[in-house]
């Protein structure tokens, strides 16, 4: 009897609430539809990625989803962004006023492993009021990948408007231009962080966390220059036009090298130990300075039975910072290849099936810059490590090529 009574009561409750929900839904669906209509009112669709062919706009980036022109002036651009750690793409809505300045940004569907807003709750608000130059908008320490993806996506939104003459491009400061130049002239500088300078002429000091060197924005007679110093103490100076002005700005070079010499860790001794361990009879081990700004942090030449070899130590960024050693013979072929650790925190990767390290290392033997394809570096289910190893080997070949050209040898 109780069972029947309970079932009857449950059925009655379901019917009553079901009817209430149907009734409420009729009302709320109208409210929601009106709100959505109001949101779309006053907007003219200029671009929709789903129907890009019919749009008049050109040079719109792949991450741009829609561009609306707002009736009160300005534009609303919806873009997507993904970082290495994104579980699904972020959706970013950027509102730009008629003068090309960002008036609002909304971030939705953000599912990275670490939310950059938890590290810096005000990060997004630093974009408000900025033009396409995004001056003084940095990245969030500890969430570099996702904040970079976010920043790039906003830049892409603004670039789409600029390339269609809908807004004018913002003017970048010299310091900003030179800071952005670091990525192209010092490609090996990974996970950079800014450190304080106590010298009035040094406007900015940027350290590569993988110890590949330092970058400095230094002013000389009110003109700013970028000086990059690699881990072996080689310096290059660039102006805002990205021209190499090292020979004309030797004072800047000296200042940068002097600072780097105090702060840069030397890996020469580590490399020498490695050579002695893996190359029996290695003699005449001599450090060499390579004029490259990649992931190579130390180079030395040595001889075994009168045969000349070059050993290169690279610190590329994979899942973590890797320590990769490559030994190349005089003909440019790899004779030894190894790393301190290939797979970091192996226990966290349920999908990692393990690797035969010696077989993997032997896959590099005999490869030259011409025959190395990068496929040799692939480790199943370890994409970031594979890419880092590939980068290290390519950088080692690049540095070897420079050295074997006879430049900068000590």
């Amino acid at each position, binding site marked *: 009897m*109780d*069972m029947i*009574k*309970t079932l009857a*009561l*449950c059925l009655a*409750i*379901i019917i*009553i*609430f079901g009817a*209430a*929900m149907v009734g*409420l*839904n009729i*009302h*709320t669906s109208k*409210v*929601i539809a009106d*709100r959505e209509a109001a949101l779309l009112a006053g907007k003219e669709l200029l671009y929709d990625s789903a129907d890009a062919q019919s749009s008049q706009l050109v040079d719109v980036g792949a991450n741009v989803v829609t561009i609306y022109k707002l009736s009160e002036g300005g534009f609303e651009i919806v873009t997507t962004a993904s970082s290495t750690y994104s579980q699904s793409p972020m959706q970013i809505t950027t509102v730009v006023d008629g003068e090309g300045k960002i008036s609002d940004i909304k971030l*939705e569907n953000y599912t990275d492993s670490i939310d950059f807003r*938890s*590290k810096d*709750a*005000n990060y997004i*608000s630093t974009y408000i009021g900025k033009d396409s130059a995004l001056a003084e908008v940095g990245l969030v320490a500890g969430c570099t990948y996702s904040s970079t993806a976010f920043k790039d996506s906003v830049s892409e939104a603004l670039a789409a408007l600029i390339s269609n003459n809908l807004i004018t491009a913002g003017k970048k400061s010299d310091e900003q231009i030179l800071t952005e130049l670091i990525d192209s002239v010092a490609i090996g500088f990974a996970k950079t962080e800014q450190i304080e300078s106590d010298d009035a002429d040094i406007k900015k000091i940027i350290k590569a966390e993988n110890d590949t060197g330092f970058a400095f924005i230094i002013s000389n007679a009110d003109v700013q220059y970028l000086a990059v110093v690699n881990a072996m103490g080689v310096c290059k100076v660039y102006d805002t036009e990205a021209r190499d002005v090292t020979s004309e700005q030797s004072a800047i070079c000296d200042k940068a090298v002097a600072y780097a010499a105090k702060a840069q860790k030397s890996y020469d001794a580590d490399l020498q130990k490695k050579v002695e361990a893996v190359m029996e009879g290695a003699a005449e081990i001599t450090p060499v300075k390579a004029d490259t700004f990649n992931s190579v942090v130390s180079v030395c030449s040595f001889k075994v039975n009168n045969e000349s070899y070059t050993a290169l130590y690279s610190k590329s960024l994979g899942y973590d910072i890797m320590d990769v050693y490559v030994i190349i013979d005089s003909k440019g072929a790899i004779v030894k290849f190894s790393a301190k650790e290939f797979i970091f925190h192996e226990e966290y990767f349920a999908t990692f099936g393990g690797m035969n390290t010696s077989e993997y290392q032997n896959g590099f033997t005999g490869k030259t810059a011409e025959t190395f394809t990068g496929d040799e570096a692939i480790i199943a289910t370890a994409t970031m490590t594979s890419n880092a190893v590939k980068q290290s080997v390519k950088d080692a070949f690049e540095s070897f090529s420079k050295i074997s050209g006879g430049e900068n040898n000590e």
Partner: protein
Amino acid sequence: MNKKPCLLRGNPSLLLVLGAGFVMASSTDVRAALGMGIAVLLTLFFSSIVISAVRNIIPEKGKLPCYVLIITGFVSLICMLMEAYYPDIVKMLGVHLAALAVSAVAFRDADEVAGQNGEWHSIKTAFVTGIFFTAIMFVCALIREILGNATICGKPIEFLQNYKISFLAQVFGAYVVLAIVIAIIKKIFKTKCKEEEDK
């Protein structure tokens, strides 16, 4: 002597323990805390009215499914209303708003208060419980948002930007704030409730 149940039986310190998940999830922003608090208040209020009204016709063994249906029904209706009128708050609360349907706070109130007392007492208790819950969520959110994020209702507080106690915005900080608030509330209401029950 038959003791009259304390109106403050929805003792916030007990409530906070039961609703710790909600407090932590919804107290990073004052708007979210208020939204969640009002949703809890309305759920308790309406479900108390209905449960206390039908308590005598629900068989003992049928209590749980009936309470579940009543509470989830009201939560669904409140979610629908909030989605229509406060979509931004619904976005902030995410899945936690719908999870209110299985909240121990609502079930405790339904089972221990509305299921055993008349309508008037149930409504009073639900109202007091809901108001306390909202107020405590608000206080936790205020502390965490101002000190942890240096914002209020999402708007930056300029002079506090360099003095943020960032851990307060994290889950660990939520636990710390919650523990402090529980301790204070317990101290304040312990004697008050005892006095009321003894009357």
